[in-house]
């Protein structure tokens, strides 16, 4: 038990240590300063030339957003076409069939929005070609899309007065060539050493000890897994994600993959500090994010390692923790840590079944996604936090008797309006979605039993989780929910699109609006945003908004379940 906890601490400590220099490096990449990967410039320039991109073009926030949205729209069709045609395309040693149009539609959207909600099993639903040129490609470019938006935000925040948020294409390509690709190579290499397959051969057949024949799916797994973890994507090669023994064979690979989940989201906070030259500000944010992360980890680890009292009553030993839905090679503690890491970031990969988490851990997983900015997705995590900063700045600005300003820019009605819409969006999508599902489940009990593995509080949690995961672009499932039906495909699909693009549009709009405003130099009366008081203020704002919006629903779900335990 002790070694288990040491392992967890080591993993978290390593991640934080690695994230700091990485954050510094990323700030240099986005600033366009010299880095040791500059030898890649000719390749990048070749891309610009082929695509007729002028890398020196300056974009204001509107052009930036139009570019971002247009290219995403194109990718969406690229995804659908390849998935529908995959049966006749090369690299299909197992002869897997093409996806139906509705399934392709769902898959393409889900990967385009960096959510990776999967309504198929990778082993049979995809070919190696689509694994690589839809799934893996999207995992690179959609992560890079979020990172580019973040880079634009940095540019807007650091300038005194500007209309220029930088060039989307340059950010996008550099995010891939300078950040995601090198890191994926390292992670991929490490997990290959750990035993994750990387080949283009088809299924292998082997005879088990029982003498039965079993076919084992394989393929270019390591390549997909590396970027799946690094880019807060989460869509696994196999249906069982990182709980699958070939996607995550050992404690060692589990640790590498676990570090990869948190690495970039943490690094981006340091990047912020280096880029806008406000280290105390970044440190404050880092700590505000770290604290709830660590708290949720300690509660979840404690809950999972303690076991489930109801099962203990049945005479099943819980001395190694609550092992339902968990892998023996990973253990209860490391599964709990992963569950928290994957939900604070919008990763969504799993190494155990979240449906089997004890109620409090389940609730924390939901709550983490409802907040959606304790580190959050690559790039977009801070962008979500930024909205809360705007609200915190507004409240505390008033409290010190001055029109609220953030980094020298006045926050006025227009920015407030956008911030409020974005803040409202998340509870709106989650609560309304779950409410509609609940209503349907009540009015048609047959439908309810088809959807839900469990009735009552846990059933509510399952529906609640699905919408929360979609709205947070997380992509993990509570499971226990028959989600491959029209209702769930369509409703979560809508939620996915809205919850991905509206916040990015709103956040970039606020940054663009603020960036073009007149810069006001700091005075003794100006609210300082790099103090612990302000960090605390932001923390309280986030907690209060999330808690207030979701507390009643959580009460009827996991809290009621916990108290009935």
């Amino acid at each position, binding site marked *: 038990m002790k070694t288990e906890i040491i392992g967890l601490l080591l993993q978290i400590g390593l991640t934080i240590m690695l994230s700091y220099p990485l954050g510094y490096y990323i700030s240099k990449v986005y600033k366009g300063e010299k880095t040791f990967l500059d030898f890649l410039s000719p390749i990048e320039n070749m891309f610009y030339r082929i695509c007729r991109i002028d890398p020196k073009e300056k974009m204001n926030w509107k052009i930036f957003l139009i570019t971002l949205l247009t290219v995403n729209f194109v990718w969406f069709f690229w995804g659908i076409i390849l998935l529908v045609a995959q049966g006749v395309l090369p690299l299909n040693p197992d002869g897997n069939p093409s996806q139906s149009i509705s399934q392709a539609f769902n898959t393409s959207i889900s990967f385009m929005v960096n959510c990776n909600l999967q309504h198929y099993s990778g082993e049979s639903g995809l070919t190696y070609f689509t694994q690589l040129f839809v799934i893996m490609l999207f995992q690179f470019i959609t992560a890079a899309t979020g990172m580019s938006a973040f880079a634009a935000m940095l540019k807007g925040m650091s300038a005194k007065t500007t209309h220029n948020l930088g060039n989307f294409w340059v950010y996008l390509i550099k995010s891939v060539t300078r950040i995601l690709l090198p890191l994926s190579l390292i992670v991929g290499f490490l997990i290959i050493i750990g035993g994750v397959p990387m080949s283009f051969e088809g299924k292998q057949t082997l005879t088990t000890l029982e003498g039965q024949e079993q076919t084992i799916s394989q393929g270019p797994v390591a390549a997909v897994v590396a970027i799946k973890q690094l880019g807060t994507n989460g869509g696994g090669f196999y249906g069982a994600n990182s709980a699958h023994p070939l996607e995550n064979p050992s404690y060692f690979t589990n640790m590498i993959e676990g570090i990869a989940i948190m690495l970039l989201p943490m690094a981006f906070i340091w990047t912020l500090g280096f880029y806008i030259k406000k280290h105390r500000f970044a440190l404050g944010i880092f700590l505000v994010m770290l604290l709830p992360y660590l708290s949720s980890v300690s509660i979840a680890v404690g809950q999972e390692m303690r076991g489930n009292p109801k099962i203990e009553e049945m005479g099943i030993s819980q001395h190694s923790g609550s092992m339902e839905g968990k892998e023996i090679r990973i253990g209860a503690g490391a599964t709990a840590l992963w569950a928290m890491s994957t939900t604070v970031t919008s990763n969504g990969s799993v190494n155990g079944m979240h449906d089997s988490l004890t109620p409090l851990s389940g609730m924390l997983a939901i709550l983490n996604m409802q907040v959606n900015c304790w580190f959050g997705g690559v790039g977009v995590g801070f962008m979500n936090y930024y909205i809360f900063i705007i*609200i915190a700045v*507004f*409240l*505390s*600005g*008033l*409290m*010190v*008797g*001055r*029109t609220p300003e953030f980094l*020298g820019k006045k926050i*006025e*009605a227009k920015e*407030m309006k956008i911030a*409020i*819409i974005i*803040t*409202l969006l998340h*509870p709106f999508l989650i*609560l*309304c979605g*779950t*409410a509609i599902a*609940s*209503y349907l489940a*009540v009015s048609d009990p047959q439908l309810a039993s088809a959807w839900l593995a469990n009735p*009552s*509080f846990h*059933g*509510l949690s399952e529906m609640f989780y699905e919408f929360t995961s979609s709205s947070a672009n997380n992509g993990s499932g509570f499971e226990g929910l028959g989600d491959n039906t029209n209702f769930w495909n369509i409703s979560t699909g809508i939620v996915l699109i809205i919850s991905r693009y509206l916040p990015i549009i709103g956040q970039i709009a606020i940054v663009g609006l603020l960036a073009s405003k007149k*810069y*006001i*130099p700091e*005075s*003794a*009366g*100006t*609210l*300082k945003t790099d*103090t612990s*008081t*302000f960090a*605390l*203020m932001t923390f309280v704002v986030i907690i*209060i*908004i999330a*808690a*207030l*919006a979701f*507390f*009643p*629903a959580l*009460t*009827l*779900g996991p*809290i*009621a379940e916990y*108290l*009935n335990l």
Partner: protein
Amino acid sequence: MKKENHFITPDQLKFCLKESLVKLNPKTMARNPIMFTVLISTSIMFIISILVLFGYKNQGSFVYNFLVFSILLITILFANFAEAIAEARGKAQAESLRKTREETPAKKIVDGKIINISSSLLKKGDIFECSIGDIIPSDGEIVEGIASIDESAITGESAPVIREAGGDKTSVTGGTKVLSDHIIVRVTAQPGESFLDKMIALVEGASRQKSPNEIALTILLSGFTLVFVIVCVTLKPFADYTGTTITIASLVSLFVCLIPTTIGGLLSAIGIAGMDRALRANVITKSGKAVETAGDIDTLLLDKTGTITIGNRKATNFYAINSNNLNEFIDACILASISDQTPEGKSIVELGRNQGFIADQSALIGCKWIEFSAQTKCSGVELRNGVTIVKGAMEAICQIIESNNKVFPNYAREISHKIAENGGTPLVLAMDNDVMGVIELQDIIKPGIQDRFERLRKMGVKTVMVTGDNALTAQYIANKAGVDDFIAEAKPEDKMEYIRNEQSNGKLVAMMGDGTNDAPALAQADVGVAMNSGTQAAKEAGNMVDLDNDPTKLIEIVEIGKQLLMTRGTLTTFSIANDVAKYFAIVPALFMSSIPALKALNVMNLSSPESAILSAVIFNALIIPALIPLALKGVQYKPIGASAILRRNLFIYGLGGAIVPFIGIKLIDMAIATIL
């Protein structure tokens, strides 16, 4: 003006109670989205109560439903009452000013003839006359004459002031009294359109517009309200799915308790109170926005004269070269200064008069004045008998004397030097090219002004002194008074230039002025305070008028602006922090009967679900009147730096806001439990 000390008079109370009901008009309520949703909730509860009375099932007893309805109604009434009180107080303040000028006889001049009419019939552009003892019937500008005027009716200051045609002190205010002489005045405002009338309209709400910060805050609060609409509406299907029944009364109560009714109910009262506080400081604001902007001021332009120093430079001492000649010297000083209309010249005559010397009028007959000119840099008089007396800067006099082959006495040089060292200005006087002595002029820095500048610095406001002095003297006084910057040898264009420059750096600038040549700068400044004594042009250009003509008033105005924003911020924080306790009161109460395990969330151990819900709504209603005094008085501003203020306010209103309702709701619950 008499300061109103009591909080509210019985008459006002009666008015406010009536007004609270009048304001229930949905049209009026729609101005405030938060309270409007409460109105809708109240209506829903009214309908439910009636339905229950006629046998609608599963919604609890009629008494319970009706109680919830009544408390919600009272919540709205309290909010309306808060607004009504703020209006009543502001209006009372403004009325007491307006009363002074109602229905006085006016001597209107038409074609050179005087017609007696009532002041209310005076129109803009009319000309009227006032003599000793007359009450000035309307705001206006003196076109002819000079008079001393008692403005105590407006400013409370008993010392009379001089107003005269031409120059910067031409304005007279209706209701003030002419103490001496005779003036002819042109009316500058239509009846009902004076600044005071505008201000009263502003307070009354008809023309009250939300300021930018108020709009942004309303958006935030509406957002919070909308979140809770979603939370409460979706709770119903959740409860249905888990097999829990929720009454409509509980859902409505949950909603009303969670939305920020406290700040929503007090928001307009806070805004009005801000203007009212400005009025109490004898400042008429032309918009609520101006008060708010004052809180954001980064740079403050202050005239040296009257703000930092008392009046103009004053003669403080006569130093005769030959001490036996002192009387003769002082006589000469007076003679040389009597026609000198500069403040310095006047102060020399005054100092002489104070020492018992009066100008010999006979000596002045047939004399020739020597006007100050740029060439000679001195002024004086040539008497009938050919004797010339000149006074001027040491260098100028020295030059004249030496050009007449006489010696400039060393003693005069020594005295001059000593005076200059002490920040004073020496003025050398010579009669027929013989130096008679030196007059010392001193700037007297107002006592306590250093502390006020220190206070401003801590607020983050940069102070800039504007003066006509040369750079050296300006530097000396700037250092002594502790201002951050100064504009020496300032021309009106320099002020303008400075303001533009600061503004282009993103700073907000406030200034005070009175003269017509100040008008462009007053208009350019973000907060321009015109003195009431100033010209009409200046008053039109600024966005506030100071009735006291007190240049240090700007400091108070900045604090009033900051208080206004702080009061809004802290009460919002308080209101939102309250929700934590309300959740712990209502949420367990909602589900306790269906899901007994949720009793564990009933941390306050409230006696029953009904009493828990009633306690929460009662607390929610009571907190509004409890906070009215704070909303009207404003949260105290202390210049301790932004971070310290934030810590302090977060502690008091954030933490306090989280804890107070736990205690309050528990107490109300205990009271309800004993009654039922």
